């Protein structure tokens, strides 16, 4: 209705605008339209701070509803804590507490045993958007942009007026500091409201607390589901979760070794866009083109650099910062035209088949488990790796409903925007009927299944900043499908074995049920003795059991 009304208004408006041009009489009726000069406009043009942008567009970052805001806040804090522990080589011990302040207000506290944060960095990390260690490098990590936790802090500040509280202790012999930080939203800078040294028992770690406007819900798309799934994808972490009702859930550690640390890589030339290339050319410290190409990118040997320069018709000694748009563009084309080695792929840290199974077993009670971990592949110059695991046929898993799908990117559960995700699309496009499941056209398969798909990459291409679904690059879809087919085949073997066993069972019961009646009928017609009848039945039974049909 509102759509139709809007259309009418637009149409009417257009008509009104068109009329004056047609009749002189109507022209007099237009003085209301004030034409602005460039100077007028310039007065109104000013820088938009990131924080202001966020205030208006908080849905982009996952704060669109109070329920989602709670999840996003928890998620950002937990992701950061896990990243910090792993980078420091510490097996993570996490504590998450959510307290209900009022029905629409909650206090979230996340505490880790990580390396702590240097005193000077704390305000910027929590009080400035787009500040962080992760945006400027290519390395598999949970966080990518440096928006997350400061955005949560800002959301809390906007909705409750309360600053974020951070307690951090970098080592056993160093003092713990407690900060209350607010954000100057116009200038995107932190304002430290309070800073004290405090007594803190743990040897090292960080605890942050923030109060936000939120609502708490149970279920798979809530904090509860997020923590449960985080436990599945992070078997090396120990999680403790105290929910708003005061109930304490423990997710003990299953794997006692840290995953192989992911390595940082330089961008691969084939994954770089023209704008980025221009920026890199201007920012580089390299003195010449050869040095730039070999130094700033991975997989560019001096020979390859010379070849690129030759194709771009620039000397290898060309000074990078002199490059204008034209040079950059010919360089860009030359890069695309040059064959280069694929980026190094051993830099990723997949979960691995064994731990996938362990993680799933811990959370799901099922009859059959299968997992697969594909070798790394490349999209747009970024190495990535797909893993899949499934649990089949457990108590309480309905067999006549669509399967339950768990999506993960760099070990982080993705809870929203399932249908827009490359994972979902790949599951739908896979033919599950071949593996003994039911599946309607264009839908997820049906069956008592929990299916888990994990994508690890130095840069996971999300469809939006709220990091809820993975973009559908053909290379990624292809790898997901191959992984699904792999676990599907394993499942198919199990299901078919079950069907075969059921057939055998049916055959046995058929024989048991109906052979006596053949005996009875023959006895009635031929007046044979009970002994003869039993012999007929016994012989027939052996004959049928021996045959396979």
């Amino acid at each position, binding site marked *: 209705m509102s759509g139709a009304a809007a259309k009418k208004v637009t149409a009417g408006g257009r008509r009104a605008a068109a009329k004056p041009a047609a009749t002189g009489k109507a022209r007099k009726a237009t003085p209301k339209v004030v034409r602005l000069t460039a100077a007028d406009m310039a007065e109104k043009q000013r820088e938009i701070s990131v924080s202001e942008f966020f205030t208006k567009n908080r849905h982009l970052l996952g704060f669109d509803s109070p329920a989602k805001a709670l999840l996003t806040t928890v998620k950002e804090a937990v992701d950061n804590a896990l990243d910090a522990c792993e980078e420091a080589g510490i097996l993570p011990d996490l504590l998450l507490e959510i307290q209900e302040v009022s029905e629409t207000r909650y206090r979230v506290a996340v505490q880790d045993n990580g390396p702590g944060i240097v005193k000077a960095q704390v305000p910027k990390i929590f009080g400035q958007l787009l500040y962080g260690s992760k945006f400027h490098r290519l390395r598999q990590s949970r966080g990518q942009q440096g928006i997350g936790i400061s955005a949560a802090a800002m959301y809390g500040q906007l909705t409750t007026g309360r600053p974020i509280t951070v307690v951090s202790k970098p080592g056993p012999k160093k003092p713990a500091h407690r900060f209350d930080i607010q954000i100057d939203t116009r200038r995107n800078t932190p304002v430290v409201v309070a800073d004290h040294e405090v007594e803190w028992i743990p040897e090292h770690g960080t605890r942050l607390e923030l109060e936000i406007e939120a609502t708490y819900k149970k279920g798979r798309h809530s904090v509860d589901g997020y923590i449960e799934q985080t436990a599945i994808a992070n078997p090396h972490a120990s999680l403790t979760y105290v929910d708003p009702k005061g109930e304490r859930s423990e997710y003990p550690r299953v794997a006692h070794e840290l995953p192989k640390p992911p390595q940082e890589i330089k961008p691969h030339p084939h994954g770089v866009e023209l704008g980025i290339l221009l920026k890199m050319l201007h920012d580089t410290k390299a003195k010449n083109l050869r040095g730039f190409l070999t130094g700033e990118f991975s997989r560019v040997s001096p020979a390859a650099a010379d070849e690129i320069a030759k194709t771009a018709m620039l000397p290898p000694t060309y000074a990078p910062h002199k490059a204008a748009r034209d040079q950059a563009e010919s360089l860009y084309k030359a890069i695309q035209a040059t064959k280069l080695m694929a980026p190094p792929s051993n830099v990723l840290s997949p979960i691995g088949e064994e731990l996938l199974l362990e993680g799933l077993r811990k959370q799901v009670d099922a009859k059959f488990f299968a997992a697969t971990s594909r070798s790394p592949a490349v999209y747009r110059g970024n190495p990535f790796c797909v893993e899949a695991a499934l649990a089949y046929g457990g108590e309480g898993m309905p067999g006549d409903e669509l399967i339950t799908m768990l999506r993960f990117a760099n070990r982080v559960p993705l809870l929203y925007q399932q249908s827009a995700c490359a994972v979902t699309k790949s599951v739908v496009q896979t033919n599950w009927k071949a593996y003994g499941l039911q599946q309607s056209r264009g839908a997820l398969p049906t069956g008592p299944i929990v299916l888990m798909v994990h994508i690890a990459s130095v840069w996971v291409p999300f469809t939006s900043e709220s990091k809820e679904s993975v973009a559908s690059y053909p290379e990624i879809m292809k790898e997901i499908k191959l992984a699904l087919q792999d676990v599907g085949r394993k499942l198919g073997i199990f299901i078919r074995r079950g069907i075969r066993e059921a057939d055998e069972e049916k*055959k046995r019961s*058929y*024989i048991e*049920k*109906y*052979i006596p*009646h*053949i005996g*009875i*009928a*023959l006895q*009635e*017609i*031929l007046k*044979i003795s009970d002994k003869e009848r039993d*012999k*007929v039945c016994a*012989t*027939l039974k*052996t*004959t*049928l059991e021996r*045959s396979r*049909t």
Partner: protein
Amino acid sequence: MSDKLVPKIKKEAKAVEDQILKKKKPTMKFPVRSLANVRYVEKAGYFEIRGMKKERTLTVNTVKTFAQTLRMMSLSKTLVETDDIATKREAYYVSKNWGDARFLEQTESDTVMDDVEALFEVNREQMGFAPEEKGGDVSGALVVVDKDPDTGKKIRIDCTQFGSGAYSIPISVEHLQFETKAKFILVIETAGMFQRLVKHGYWKKANCILVSMGGVPTRACRRFIRRLADDMKIPVYVFVDGDPYGISNIYRTFKVGSGNAAHINEFFCVPQARFLGITPQDILDYKLPTHPLKEVDVKRAKDAIKNDPFFKHHKSWAKAMEHLVSMGVRAEQQALAAHGLNYVIDEYLPQKIAHPERFLP
């Protein structure tokens, strides 16, 4: 009859037992019950069964049907030996004592019964099984001689003495005798048309016997008319709706039998029957009000022309059927009422009866 059937059942059962004891999977051979397994023999006048048989081997998948077939044979043997009968419905209920081998629906027991019937090439009445259905109504110049079930004394039933009612054909007609001076038997599809002809005493005017089939004629009805026509040597004229169902299902089954009961057509057909109407040509000649042919009608007609041995044999019938399809319409018996309620008695039937040589075969 029973002295023939019991040894047959015993022989079949013995063969099954022998195969089992030889550690083989026993088999039974059943005649195929379909139009594909019949041949139209004009001289004999009915669909004759061809030799096609399907072999049923006892396997895990067939063990249930096999057990049911044997138990049905046993039941039949008991019925024949004790001179009793069971209706098809009763036989279905008897199976409820068979534990796991019981039938869940009567259609299942009917199918097994038809199989056993075909296996021994007898009709189910001979096996002690009786149909539920009623045979048909008779009115007109006929005396049926029956026996009192208790005393065995002869009873003479005068079919002119039923007033506005009618004599009902019994399930078994083999023992009946007839007395008549009628000139022909008029067999009618619908009870409504039968009522009209009885009420206005058409059989008196035309000196005939009227029989109402009420749709596809039962076996008893067919057998009754066959015996009557054979014994009394009188012609049989059939008066049905002018549509593919009236022609290919009712009339064809009445005259030459069906594919499903191929093994007993010999007894349950009326080869001397001729088709009075309503013919496709009648629709034009008598300017009858029509209804369009439904999709199933067209399918049935085309199927008959293509696959039914009767229509393949009689070119005049194939032509008539094609004519009907090309007109795309059908006409019911009662459509004659459009020219006046008694037009059928005063005009249509007399005009038709005057020229039996024009009837379709």
